[in-house]
């Protein structure tokens, strides 16, 4: 009954569509998580693509934050209503890769349908995150970012620091912060988003070239175990707890740290570390001169800084659609990887240029000369050739592991646990989560 009503509805819709002139066009649905300004930019890309040819129509639709959108996609897939393309955040990569039957790998799609697609045009540190062990690109890099340091030049000046020099080490972070607080230029030295996760363990491990987990940080197998309870993480977390007492550091909340922005804009904290994609937001909200720097490292660790790792999202193509539609998806992804589209997206949003050509084009256009600091993120991910420890982290159920890390850092900051206890406990809980994932995917 239900079904017949539904199918007659579909038939009716098809009839109505048939009378519209857009009959010959194949529709491609694209689910994404870009709200506000970013969403408008994304819609513009789809509109430009639609205007550039007559065969396909890309229909973007906002499906909530990354987490929600991923859950919606999975629910839609189970109901057989999945979109063609979905934007998935980097921590969802492990889950998507394990879902072999649900995903049409991009390299495969391009081999089957796209003639002139060249994966080597992409920056290795970006594609490294999304390729399998054989070097096949599974999803299409779209919006990648990496964390950097932002600082308040006015506060630096008021504290007698050189506003053109950003702190490069954690030792300097502390010294600069103390000088700022003593001078009364600000109440707090620095705050950071993703204090326990993307910055406080993932990038920390990569920059110091120490493993976050076994088996190449989880890249080469589901049996990997976490190892982020290393000396360097313990040292940072211990420091954060101490620094919190004296105001050198202020905790801005779990996950992305929703309070880090306000703390920095209000002039309460002199420095903030967060995604390079926060650049536009920070510049719009700060009524002072903003300086940019790379993430700090411990000055006495040899080989640091290695290179930072990325975050952000990629586009996954889902299985279960018609060949003609995949033809259209391949055409669209080819269009997306052109230097012009990439460069425009990069310059408008603050996300990294994901292809070399887009970076060079932005250089040619004089973007980096006109926007000092915009290239810090790019330089930081390209500091050195990525090693096993610095090409990224890839684990199933990664969102849950991040939640565990947030909780454990909170226990350190509230004085309930020492840094070593908290990180050991995070490893133990995280490994349990990994075993669950392994069991569910074997």
């Amino acid at each position, binding site marked *: 009954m239900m079904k017949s009503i539904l199918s007659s509805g579909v038939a009716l819709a098809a009839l109505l569509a048939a009378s519209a002139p857009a009959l010959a066009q194949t529709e491609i649905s694209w689910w994404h998580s870009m709200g506000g300004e970013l969403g408008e930019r994304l819609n513009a890309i789809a509109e430009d693509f639609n205007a550039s040819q007559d065969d396909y129509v890309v229909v973007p639709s906002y499906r909530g934050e990354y*987490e929600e959108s991923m*859950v919606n996609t*999975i629910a839609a*897939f*189970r109901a057989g209503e999945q979109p063609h393309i979905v934007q998935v955040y980097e921590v969802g990569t492990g*889950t998507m890769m*394990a*879902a*072999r*039957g*649900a995903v049409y790998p991009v390299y495969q799609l391009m081999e089957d349908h796209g003639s002139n697609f060249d994966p080597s045009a992409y920056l290795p540190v970006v594609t490294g995150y999304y390729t399998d062990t054989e070097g096949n690109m599974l999803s299409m890099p779209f919006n990648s970012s990496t964390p950097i340091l932002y600082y308040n030049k006015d506060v630096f000046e008021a504290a007698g620091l050189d506003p053109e020099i950003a702190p490069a080490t954690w030792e300097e972070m502390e010294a600069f912060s103390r000088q700022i607080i003593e001078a009364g230029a600000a109440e707090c030295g620095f705050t950071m988003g993703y204090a326990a996760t993307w910055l406080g363990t993932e990038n920390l491990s990569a920059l110091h070239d120490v493993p976050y987990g076994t088996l190449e940080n989880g890249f080469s197998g589901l049996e990997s175990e976490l190892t982020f309870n290393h000396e360097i993480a313990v040292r940072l977390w211990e420091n954060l707890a101490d620094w919190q007492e004296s105001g050198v550091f202020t*905790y*801005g*909340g*779990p*996950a992305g740290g929703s*309070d880090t922005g*306000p*703390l920095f804009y*209000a002039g*309460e904290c002199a420095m903030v570390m967060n995604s390079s994609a926060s650049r536009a937001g920070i510049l719009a909200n700060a009524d002072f001169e903003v300086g940019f720097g790379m993430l700090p490292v411990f000055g006495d660790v040899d080989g640091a800084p290695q290179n930072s790792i990325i975050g952000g999202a990629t586009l996954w193509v889902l299985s279960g659609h018609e060949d003609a539609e995949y033809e259209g998806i391949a055409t669209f992804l080819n269009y997306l990887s052109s230097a012009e589209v990439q460069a425009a997206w990069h310059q408008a949003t603050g996300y990294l240029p994901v292809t070399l050509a887009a970076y060079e084009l932005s250089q040619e256009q004089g973007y980096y000369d006109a926007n000092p600091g915009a290239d810090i993120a790019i330089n930081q991910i390209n500091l050195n050739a990525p090693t096993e420890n610095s090409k990224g982290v890839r684990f199933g*159920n990664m*969102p*849950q592991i991040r*939640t565990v890390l*947030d*909780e*454990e850092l*909170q*226990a350190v*900051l*509230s004085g*309930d646990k020492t840094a070593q206890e908290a990180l050991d406990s995070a490893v133990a809980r995280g490994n349990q*989560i990994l075993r*669950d994932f392994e*069991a*569910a*995917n*074997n």
Partner: protein
Amino acid sequence: MQTKRSIFHNRWLPYALLAPQLAITIVFFIWPASQAVKSSFEREDPFGFRTSFVWFENYTRILADPSYLNALGRTAVFSVSVTVLSMGLALLLAVCVDRVLRTRRLYTTLLVWPYAVAPVVAGVLWWFLFNPTIGLLPYILDGFGIDWNHRVNGTQAMILVTIAAAWKQISYNFLFFLAGLQSIPASLTEAASIDGAGPAKRFWTILFPLLSPTTFFLLLINVNYVMFETFGVIDATTSGGPNQATMTLVYKVYTDGVAGLNIGSSSAQSVLLMGIVILLTFIQFRYVERRVNY
């Protein structure tokens, strides 16, 4: 006692009249609940490619999991404090309004307003008021030497969600208490006054016992409210943190199932939660109701 009895001549008419309600109950309650029971015995990857039947493994794992037991304890603390706080304040307000003669309607209307606020919005309001960086209350508390930071301090986070959740429920409780008070004949309290009973004595010996059916009803409603409907408040204020200090059972079902995509464990948790609420309701009807003075 006589009861009203309707007689249907058509055998199918009563069923037809019941059908819409039954259909809704089946589609929105029974069917999803049975799905939850089913998947609580399974282990499955998020996309549903590989499903294996694991008997009671999900349950045994949950019951041995310290974070689940923590959530159980937090929920107990949370539901008792929200219920006591919201019912206590509502009763106090109702008694006050009941004594007011002229502006009673105005007070009633004003006091009912918070009930119209969506849980998430209520959460956001309190989040703003208590925000350690930009909030008004931490600024005032600082003057009393209290360093408010619920992002790190678990007790403060619990106080925050308790206040936010109780505030929303006060209106509802208030309305019922006020109606209850107004249905108590004035002659009883007047007689007591003539015998020399003061307001406090009159309240505890006459009004409070006569209100007990209302109180009992509200107790049930409030416990259910805390168990299920405080999700929005917690999500908007603390997201269960810091370090699981405000992780209630229902919020844990969400974090494990929706955010963590661990469907088996999350289903087992919701089945347990359902069991807890059924048990509580049963105990309340079986034992508490006996002491209620109708």
